């Protein structure tokens, strides 16, 4: 019991501590691919520490909702990330929420962030919120379709069970899983506001979505929002790794010290590969217009639906 609690606590601490590192790693790789030196890989930590020490400049008419949202957003994202298996499955609280609930938790975070964007009453906040909910209105159904595919293959919406089943030998290669992987990568790109959907490095552009929404934030509030964005990126990379590359994860019941060390190393390697691929992809592609995003996400939705339909139909064959 105590040990299980410790493992769960370690998972929560791990996602919190590793998240800025992953963001820094992606930035560094992108800089190197562009033949720049780029900042240190630890720069996100320094940014966070600096923001935490600064005072908050609040807009004069900002309400209590604006001030509480950063904490709610970071908490919801953090809890969601802690429920995704990273280095072990079957943690003590893993049954608290299944994959549908994890997605809904992220939706809660976005709901409040979009409201906060409208709180001060500026045009930038409104444009960001409006576009964010448009993207979400397509990304969420696509994600639910991916969940359906995974749940039908694994017979469960519980992520630990899904990871265990998919790590097993009896699943093999399936068309539906391939479609789900492509759709999941597309959704992950959109949800994290990466190129080609949104540009996390942009400022003062009418094309930006997430950055426009949080334009009025400063100081510790901004730190919370940046941290939440980093955790969300880590969450999606962990999710893809846990479902489609579930190798080396310690199963429920645990293993020896060697198994724990190996699984931690494997997790770090998966994050590194995921971050590298993301940086490579972002460097290679150009950002698309906002009204092309629905086509992009509509494709993800259709792929997810197709994967689910294939599973429904192939049950009787």
């Amino acid at each position, binding site marked *: 019991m105590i040990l299980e609690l410790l493992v769960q606590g370690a998972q929560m601490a791990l996602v919190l501590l590793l998240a800025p590192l992953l963001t820094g790693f992606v930035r560094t790789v992108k800089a190197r691919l562009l033949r720049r030196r780029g900042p240190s890989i630890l720069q996100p930590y320094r940014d966070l520490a600096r923001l935490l020490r600064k005072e908050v400049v609040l807009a004069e008419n900002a309400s209590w909702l604006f001030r509480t949202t950063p904490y709610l957003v*970071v908490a919801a994202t953090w*809890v969601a990330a802690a429920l995704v298996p990273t280095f072990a499955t079957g943690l003590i609280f893993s049954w608290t929420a299944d994959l549908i609930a994890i997605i*809904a938790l992220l939706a809660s975070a976005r709901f409040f962030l979009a409201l906060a964007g409208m709180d001060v009453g500026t045009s930038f906040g409104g444009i960001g919120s409006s576009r964010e909910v448009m993207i979400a209105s397509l990304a969420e159904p696509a994600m639910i379709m991916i969940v359906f595919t995974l749940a039908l293959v694994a017979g469960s919406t519980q992520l630990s069970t899904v990871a265990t089943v998919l790590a097993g030998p009896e699943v093999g290669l399936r068309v539906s899983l391939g479609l789900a992987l492509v759709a999941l990568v597309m959704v992950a790109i959109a949800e994290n506001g990466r190129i080609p959907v949104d540009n996390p490095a942009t400022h003062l552009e009418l094309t930006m979505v997430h950055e426009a929404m949080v334009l009025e934030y400063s100081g510790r509030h901004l730190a919370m929002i940046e941290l939440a964005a980093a955790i969300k990126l880590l969450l999606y990379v962990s999710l893809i790794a846990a479902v489609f590359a579930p190798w080396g994860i310690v199963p429920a019941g645990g293993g020896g010290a060697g198994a724990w060390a190996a699984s931690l190393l494997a997790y770090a390697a998966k994050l590194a590969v995921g971050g590298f691929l993301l940086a490579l992809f972002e460097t290679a592609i150009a950002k698309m217009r906002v009204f092309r995003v629905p086509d992009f996400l509509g494709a993800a939705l259709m792929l997810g639906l197709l994967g689910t339909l294939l599973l429904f139909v192939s049950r009787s064959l």
Partner: protein
Amino acid sequence: MPILVALWCTAALLATAVAAVAIGRHPWGRPLVYGVSLTASMVAGAAALVHLVAPPGGDLTVILPLGLPWLGMHLRLDALAAFFLVVVNLGAFAASLYGIGHGRHEPAPQRVLPFFPAFLAGMTMVVLAADAFTFLLSWEFMSLASWALVMAHHRDAGNSRAGYVYLVMASFGTLALLLACGLLAGPAGGYAFADMRGGGHDATTATLVLVLVLLGAGSKAGLVPLHVWLPLAHPAAPSHVSALMSGVMTKVAVYGFVRIVFDLLGGSPWWSAMIVLAFGGASAVLGVLYALMQTDLKRLLAYSTIENVGIVFIGLGLALAFQSNAMGTAAALAFTAALLHVLNHALFKSLLFLGAGAVLTATGARDVERLGGLIRRMPVTSALFLVGCVAISALPPLNGFVSEWLTFQAVLQSPELPQWGLRIMVPAVGALLALAAALAGACFVRAFGVTFLGRPRSTAAETAREVDRVSLAAMTVLAALCVLAGLLPGVAIDALAPVAEAIVGARMPAQGASAWLTIVPIAESRGSYNGLLVMVFVAGSAAVAALAIHRFGSRATRRAPAWDCGFPVPSPATQYTAGSFSQPIRRVFATLVFRARERVEMPPPGATAPARLTVEWRDPAWDGLYTPFAGLVTAAAERLNRLQYLTIRRYLSLVFASLVGLLLAVALWP
């Protein structure tokens, strides 16, 4: 005996309705009428809850010597009726409490007070009725009482048209139900529900009854495309009546559907589930898309009711599909999900309508484009309205998420269905459900954001005052129940077990037994959810983060003008409006569904005329169905009009010809 308690409460409500005709104008008429309604709904709701949780043995049928002389008035309280009585009386309780405070702003109380208790009594009687005559009579009574309430402000623009459309659609719905009851009774004419239940019905009758009930109950519940009256009528009534109509009366319609299709008809063929699923899926998505186009706060809420009724019917359709294939556990899951959404929607939709009423009282405006910034002027109302928005957007840890999560879990049970049609249809309906849930989130970000956040867009919004404490108390009760039902859904699911047992013949696993109050639809390995722990984790993490930062980081705060990229414009007109907020979604979805078009009129350079952006969209239900139908009726009426100007000779020959025709028909009838 709970049924007698409920009947006495109904009698008290009816007596109050009669008395209110006399005392409606007196200053103490309002507290008296609403006080009696409050007490009656509390007592009846408690009695129904007792019956649901601890069902007593023995016969709970009462036959009163009223109505048709050879039939009597059959009334019965079973698990299904008890659950819907709880829902009706919860809504009635909140609306009555709100009425005590809010009613003082009513310009014409004598038009509201007599009909309010009559409306409550009508809904209670529909649920208790156990023969076709009483059922239809109460159904019509409920419709007419609510029609009178819709017409309470009959001089306001558009309200008389709303009342007219409502009356036509309500008559149509009752006609469909009347025919369905006639078919169920059969040639023997057994109009008591007990007689109908026993009779085996052939496939044609079963199909006809199902279609007729879907038309009759569906038009009252607001299924697309029978919904056209709902967004006109619900907002026209006073706000607490809107809450009752949207939150409760649509649920009574769901009750009518469940009672006739699941209970009286018994089994129905598998493809009937496809019809119900199609109506449900279309209503869920179209309802929320309509809502996203609205700028009238109450009309937006009315359209969102259509969405939620669609979600309920998706659950009912899944339950029908599983039931016709003898998949008891899955049917119980889908049915419980539908009923839980009935309860949840009654809670949060009543809350949101009461909140909209508070905004209307405080500012006099229903158009969100004239509101804004109310979170600073009306802090309590806005916090309570926010709870309703989070709940209706299906976000954890509140209650709306639980019922949609259960519906998703029911969808995941469907690959076991043997029929191909269902197997292709169910995932598509699952996608529609997911789309509706995501769009509902967008819709309520827009509704809350434009109404309560930002800067005030009019003087009325700038000078708004918080509403009275009694109204706030009514909203607080509903918000607390939303939170409670989200954190402890297992209690509600267990309370629904006898209903599912009685109607679909199976029940979900007992939730009280699972550890930490987790809800488990089938088995723990197949998916589980614990709202309480999610809430504790999120609240705990947020508190830890806030405390740690305030302790070790900075806690300094400075107020300054908004940044807005360095160019803040003082006019509140530069904010995003409701129209501009939904523009991306309008471009993605509504160009196809509603043929939405934007037209920009740009004056030539140098001209001083303002540039204009006009958005036009068409309502496919009116364009495709109602306007052509109304045209047909008018054309036919004009043709028949000629019959009014015949000579006596022609009238006589017409009478003779029809007499001969009828005699021939009788003679040739096999």
